[in-house]
Structures are given as structure tokens and as C-alpha cells.
């Protein structure tokens, strides 16, 4: 029983917060601003709790697994959710259904926790659904906007579709191997056609969730329609969680057919980077812009994943950590600006530096980090992903990845140019930041600068992933 509490501490903490919110909702309810502070505080505790009593072990047979690496991955996600609650505070205070919003978000987080910890395809599927369906409801949270409902609809349909594909793949695997346990499947795999078919189905489902090209079509519309809090949750937290479990399944379960998925990943990575980058160039809306750029970033994650060794795991986890800071900082700035001025286009950012220098510097840090320019952490993140991808010594692949960094720099510079250089008669007026937004942006900025320069972080993650 004691072991149960220690191993599942993060899940239990999140569940506790969900129930607390439920009671608040059923009871009299409290003011939104105090509720928000309370939730922020609880999320911080939840994040902090992840650092204590770290043990590895199994629960429920082979269903649930925890290792220090998994705990660390969950911490990254908790941190992300905490940051979102800070950065989007202005919008959150205004929503009519704040407790519901957090209940949904935390349910999704709980789903992700279980998903990362799963040791069996069945619980993996259940957790994945838990992590997806609440997000679709959240995407609909701008209740008066049609685009928001449209986005939610697109999301729920496409995820239902991908779940179907996933289930079909899982059933094929069960048919072939007679087991769903991660530990037992590899022994039964020998690369027969049916197995490859099953793998392709699984891969497609993951590709849907990670919006890997050519399964990315839902991404931009959903991102644009949803409120920014949800967009950032989708593009950072969801992506991170799926990337974590994807890499586990690839490396553990499908390790016997490593050659096959290596080739597939290489192809997918290349087209994802190229298409994501090319489409990002033309975007005007900042949310769509970040959506396509996040597709390109996923392409980079695939580059690291293709390594097939612990270097790949380290690089991916490290990158997701950096990505949480960088992308959330960018979304945070966008959220503040949208909330205050209602403007979402890149052209509206012209002359922003004159009025909001602090926001501009954070935005610049975030975008340079996403582009992979030192001294920001993104430089290290991308470099290590590419290094991991280079372990198989395919120079053409690495060169394509490196060249894609130029394209991505081009469109990130577009935003920076608008903010810092372009003149504008009536720029967005000076914005007074609320304390929690400021705190969130400062944490993100500090993370962007420090995670890379404090090199022990990488070594720490590496020691976990051995």
C-alpha cells in the first residue's frame, strides 16, 4: 500500500486537485482570482512533489511502471501546466467556467501521466484517450467563437479516427504475439509482414497525435481556433507526453525491428521538417505560425529519436524540457497581447519594442531558442538532437536537418523584425503585466537562458536514461 502511494504520487496529487476543484464547483464556489491563485499554488506543490521519494517499480502486474526518468518526464509536464496557469492568467480569470477548465486540463494531465507510465498497450490506449478527449472539450472553451467549436470538432474527429487506427494496430499485435505487455512483445517480433503492418498502424496513430506530416492537417485549424491556453497546452504538453511514450514504445517494444522504424523515422522527419517550415513561412496569424513551427520542431524531435540509443532518449527529453520553456514563452507573449489588444497577426507586432520592451526581449529569447541560436537553450537542444541523429552516420539526413535550421531562422526572424525594427504609426499600446504573467515570463526566460548553460542538466537526464 505504501509503495502504491509513493510510486503513484504524481497521479494521486493531480487526482486530489481535480476532486478539490469538483467540490469547489459543487459547493458555493469562490472568486475566480482566488481560485486561480489556489490552483497555481497546488500545481506548484504538485511540481515540487515530483522531486521527492523517487523510486522505480511496477504496479498492477505489468500495467504501471515508474522510473526516475519517467518521474522526470512527468515533472516537465507538471512544470508546463504550472507555467500555462501563470501565463494565461488574464484569460483564465475571465472564463466563465474556470473550475471546469482546470478539471479538464488536469484530467488530460493525469491521462498523460498514466500514459507515460504505462507498461501495457491496453492501459496505454486508455490513458491516451483520457489525455485526448478533455483537450477537445477545452478547445471549445471560447464559447462564443465559431472557430473554437470548429477546432474542437476537427480535433475530436481526427483523434477518434487516429484512436481507431491505433486500436486496430494494437489488435493486430495482440493477434500476432498473444500479449499486450511491453516486456513480452519484443520477444515475439521477427519482422514479418503482418507485424510491420501492425507497426505502421501504430506509427500512424502516433503521427496523428504528434502532427507529423502527412498526418498534420488538423493541427493548424485547431490551434488557431482554440484559446491560447489550450493551444499552448496542445502544442507543448501533449506533444511532449506523446513524444515520451512514443520513444519508449519504439525503443522497447519495437526494438527488434529497429532497422525498419529507423528508415521510416528518417523519411517522416525530413518531410515533417521541410513541410512544417515551408508552411510556417507564409503564416500571418501568430497562432497558426507557432502551430506550423511546432510541426517543424516535431520533425527535429524525430531526428533525435532515430538514434535508437540512450543518447536519443536524453536528447529528446532535454529538448522537450527546453521546448516547454521556449514555446510557452512565445505563447505567453502572444496570449498577453491577444488578451489586451485582440490582435493576433504578426503585422500587428510591428513597433512593439517601442511600447513593450520586456515582452519583446522575452519573445526574442523564445524565438531565438526555437530557432536554435546560442546562448539560448534551444541551441543545445537542437544540437544534441542532431548529434543523436548522427550516431547512425547518415550525413545527408543530418545535412537536411541542419539546413532546415536556416529556413526556420528565416521565419522566426520575421517576427523579431516586426517587433524590433519595423515602424508602425500606432503600435500595440504599453501593456501592464499582471504579477503572475510576469512571473511566468521570467521563469520561461530564465529557463531559456539557464537550461543550456547549466550543462549538468543534460548529464543528469543522461544518467536517468541509461
Amino acid at each position, binding site marked *: 500500500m505504501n509503495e502504491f502511494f509513493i510510486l503513484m504520487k504524481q497521479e494521486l496529487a493531480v487526482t486530489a486537485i481535480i476532486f478539490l476543484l469538483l467540490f469547489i464547483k459543487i459547493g458555493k464556489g469562490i472568486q475566480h482570482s482566488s481560485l486561480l491563485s489556489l490552483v497555481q499554488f497546488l500545481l506548484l506543490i504538485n511540481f515540487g512533489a515530483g522531486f521527492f521519494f523517487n523510486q522505480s517499480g511496477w504496479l498492477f502486474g505489468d500495467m504501471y511502471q515508474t522510473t526516475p526518468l519517467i518521474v522526470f518526464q512527468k515533472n516537465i509536464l507538471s512544470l508546463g501546466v504550472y507555467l500555462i496557469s501563470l501565463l494565461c492568467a488574464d484569460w483564465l480569470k475571465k472564463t466563465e467556467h474556470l473550475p471546469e477548465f482546470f478539471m479538464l486540463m488536469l484530467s488530460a494531465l493525469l491521462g498523460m501521466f498514466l500514459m507515460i507510465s504505462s507498461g501495457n498497450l491496453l492501459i496505454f490506449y486508455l490513458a491516451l484517450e483520457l489525455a485526448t478527449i478533455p483537450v477537445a472539450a477545452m478547445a471549445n472553451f471560447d464559447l462564443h467563437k465559431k472557430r473554437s467549436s470548429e477546432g474542437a470538432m476537427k480535433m475530436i474527429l481526427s483523434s477518434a479516427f487516429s484512436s481507431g487506427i491505433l486500436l486496430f494496430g494494437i489488435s493486430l499485435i495482440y493477434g500476432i504475439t498473444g500479449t499486450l505487455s511491453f516486456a513480452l512483445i519484443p520477444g515475439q517480433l521477427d519482422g514479418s509482414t503482418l507485424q510491420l503492418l501492425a507497426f505502421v498502424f501504430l506509427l500512424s496513430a502516433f503521427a496523428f497525435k504528434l502532427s507529423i506530416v502527412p498526418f498534420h492537417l488538423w493541427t493548424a485549424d485547431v490551434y488557431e481556433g482554440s484559446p491560447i491556453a489550450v493551444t499552448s497546452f496542445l502544442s507543448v504538453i501533449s506533444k511532449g507526453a506523446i513524444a515520451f511514450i512514443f520513444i519508449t514504445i519504439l525503443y522497447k517494444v519495437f526494438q527488434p525491428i529497429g532497422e525498419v522504424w529507423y528508415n521510416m523515422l528518417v523519411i517522416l522527419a525530413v518531410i515533417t521538417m521541410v513541410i512544417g517550415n515551408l508552411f510556417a513561412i507564409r503564416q500571418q496569424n501568430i497562432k497558426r505560425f507557432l502551430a506550423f513551427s511546432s510541426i517543424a520542431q516535431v520533425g527535429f524531435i524525430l531526428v533525435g529519436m532515430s538514434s535508437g540509443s540512450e543518447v536519443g532518449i536524453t536528447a529528446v527529453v532535454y529538448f522537450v524540457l527546453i521546448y516547454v520553456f521556449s514555446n510557452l514563452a512565445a505563447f505567453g507573449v502572444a496570449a498577453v497581447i491577444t488578451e489586451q489588444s485582440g490582435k493576433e497577426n504578426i503585422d500587428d507586432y510591428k513597433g512593439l519594442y517601442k511600447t513593450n520592451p520586456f515582452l519583446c526581449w522575452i519573445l526574442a529569447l523564445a524565438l531565438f531558442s526555437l530557432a536554435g541560436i*546560442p546562448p539560448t537553450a534551444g541551441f543545445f537542444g537542437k*544540437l544534441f538532437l542532431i548529434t543523436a541523429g548522427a550516431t547512425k552516420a547518415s550525413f545527408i539526413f543530418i*545535412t537536411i536537418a*541542419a539546413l532546415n535550421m536556416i529556413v526556420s531562422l528565416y521565419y522566426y526572424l520575421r517576427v523579431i*523584425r516586426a517587433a524590433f525594427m*519595423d515602424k508602425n504609426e500606432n503600435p500595440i499600446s504599453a501593456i501592464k503585466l499582471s504579477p503572475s504573467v510576469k512571473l511566468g515570463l521570467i521563469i520561461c526566460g530564465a529557463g531559456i537562458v539557464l537550461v543550456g548553460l547549466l550543462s549538468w542538466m543534460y548529464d543528469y537526464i543522461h544518467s536517468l536514461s541509461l
Partner: protein
Amino acid sequence: MNLLLLIGLPLLTAVAVLLSRNKQQVKWIALFGSVAQLALAFVLFFIYKHERETGNAAQMLFEQNYPLFKSLNINFHLGVDGISIAMILLTAFVVVAGVLVSWNIEKMTKEFYFLLILLGMGAYGFFISLDLFILFFFLEISVIPKYLLIGIWGSGKKEYSANKLALMLMGGSALILVGILGLYFAAGRSFDIMELSKATVSLPYQQVLFPLLFVGFGVFTALFPLHTWVPDGHSSAPTAGSMFLAGISMKLGGYGCLRVATYLLPEGAKEYANIIIILSAIAILYGAFATMMQKDLKYINAYSSVSHVGFSLLGIGMLTQTAITGALMQMVSHGLMTALFFAVIGMIYDRTHTRMVDEMGGLMKKLPFISTIFFIVGLCSLGLPGLSGFVAEMTIFMGSWENADAFHRIATIAAAMSIVVTAVYILRAIGNTVMGPIKNESYLSLKDAAWNERLAAIILVVGILAIGIAPGWLNDLLRPAAEEIMNRIAGK
């Protein structure tokens, strides 16, 4: 001496600039910090000399090695040899001059000086790194300052130029990245230059990696035909930005071509030496002829930079000890000279508000100090004995002549011919601006250089003269290091 000071001092200056309250404070902190850097560079130089004289024959001095990313075998490995010392001195000179020249900048002063100091820090870090990873880190760190300096404080089509520069340099970086990763895996997972210099990389790898690295660094140093960012970038940048770009940043590329590409991949260098020679000879001639057509002073200096930097690459391509020493001298000389050139152009532009040669004339009458400096730098550029340009180019030609076959001789002669063209455009530019009657009445009320401009110019002129009149010290500094590189190429 602790080399971390060279990174720490600029960093401290940059932070102090950020924390300062008003413009006056910003300027004085920046000046104080850059002078301290110059002093530090001199101290380093003299300690280094002392060490060498007392018989310390280690290839790198003051080495420090801290593990950075242990699991990937990335170390924070610092150390200097003669080449690094020369480059550090050059950087320190240009930084002080750049800070002084920008004294009257009004727009976002704090940000300007912050970025300027950061750019200098990147260069110091680059020249003292002995680990390819941190070398690459410091190379890339200058992208943001360069982009913002040109884009915000620049003139003309600044956004276009800033974008072009950032993207082309990023393209070069991408090639370098692939190259160093190739080296890393080919030589048993190490980024350490000293380890890599002892490792044997198989010939097929060298054949692939050398062009990647050389072209990658070549983009930074205007290797033909990848030089196109140079004219636009330099002419759009603010004065101090142009000085830093041409004086320091282009030298990063040359240093990388030599220390990383040629030194670590000697077989590759031999394989491709002829192509380098052809490209650099084209750059020298093309740059010179293109300069003839220019009417804007900044474009004149930018294109002539393409031509002058071509000499460094030619020296590297010749693969003899004298030529490589000359190439390094040319880097230092060109760095000082071109920084001074841009400084003078900036001073003239601040007064006349034009950079067009045709519109000016007779400046000597009203601006004697500036005009004199302009003369000196022009003469240095066309290679007058007694100034640094002559020493460097002469050394390169002598080194090139050591290769006795027809191909090398023809390339050398072709390159030498460009000096005539240089004389034509330099003398014409100087003659039209400085001499003759005053064409514009408003020039009668112009004031000569202020104290900060005088100081900046004098510092750089001192550097040029120190190399031009007594080149021995620079030669002594560079030659042993060049010998080390030659030993590696010769397979000793």
C-alpha cells in the same frame, strides 16, 4: 593567466551596461570595460611572450579544461597559441575603437552597447576555445547581435541586409555543424581540437568533411562566391557594426578555415588546395574590379574587403609556412585597417551626410585630421611599405612563390596584379573626397574630429604602424604556430 577572464570581463561589462541608469553611464562603463579588455589582451600578450622566452614549448599555453557535457565528451577546453594571441589583440583594439566611435549614438544606447560588447565576447571566446563544440557556440553567439545591430541601428535597406547576413551565416554554420559532427564520430567521439589533431581521419572522410568545414567557415570570411552578404551587410550596418563585422567577425571565418578545416583535416586540405587558390584568386581580382565600380564609400571598403580577405585564403591555400604566416598577418592587418576605414567613413558621413564619392571634395581643408587618417588607411590598403598591408601581402607572395609550379605562380601573379587595381580605386576615392575644391557650401562649417573619434583613430593607426614598421613581433608570434600547422600538413 586565467583565460576565463577574457570571457568574464566582457560578460561583466555587458551586465553592468544593462544595469546602468542613463546613457552617460552606459558609455563610460562600456569604454572602461573595453579598455580593461585591451589591457588584459596586452597582459596576456606579454605573459605569453615571457613564457615562450623562458622556454615553454607547449603548443598551447594557459590551458584549462572543464568537463561540460560529460556524457557527450564535450569539454570547456581553453588555451592559446600565437595565432589566438594575435587575434585577441586585434579584437581588443577594434572593440575599444568601436565603442569610442559610437559615442554619440542616441537611439537605444544601452541596447546598442550591450550587443556590441556581446559581439566582442563571442570573438574572444571563439579565439580561445580548443573544443569544437564551444568554438561553434561562440561562433553562433554573434548571430543575434549582428542581426539586431544592422536591423535596428543600420541605414539603407537594413532589414534586407540583416536578413541576408543572418541567413547566409546560418547557412555557413549549418555546414560547419555537419562538419564537426562528422569529425566527432570519425575520430572516436571527441570535439577536442588537441585530440583531433592527433587522430587520424580516413581519407574518404577528409574528402567529405574538409569542404563542408572550409566552405562553412568560408561563408564567414567572404569566400567567393559566398561573399554576397559582405557588401550589403557592411554598408547597411552602423559604423561600429561595420567595424566589428569586417574587423572581427570575418576573421572568425579565416581562423576557422585554418585552425579547424586545414589543421584537423590536412589530407583534405591538400586535396582541395587548388580549388581554394582558384576561388581566392577570383575573389581578389573580382573584389578589386568590383570596387572600381562603386561610388558609395562603404561599398568601396566592403568590396575591397572581399579582395583583401581573399589574400588570407590564398595564403592558406598555398600551404607553405610563410604563406600561412602571411595569411594570418593579413587577417590582423586587414582587421585593423578595415575597422579604421569604416570608422573614418562613419566620421565623414556624420558630417557630410553622404557617402557618395562624387558629392564630396576638398574635405582636407575643413577636416584635416579625418582626411589624414583617411589617407593613411588608404595607403595601407594599397600596400604602401611601412604600413601593415604591405608586410602581410608581401609575406603571402613570398610564401606563395615557394611553390614552384606554373599553377601556383600564375595564381600568385594574378593576385599580385590586383594591387594595381587597388591603387586605382583607393587613390581615386581619396582624391575625389579629400582633395580638390569644396563642392558643397555647407561643408565650410564642418568641424573636425572630436576627442573620441581622434582617440579611436589613433589607437587603430598605432596598431597599423606597429605591424608596418616592426613586423618582427607579429612574425615571431605567428610563425611557431604556423609551423605547428605545417607539421601536421606535412605529416610529421
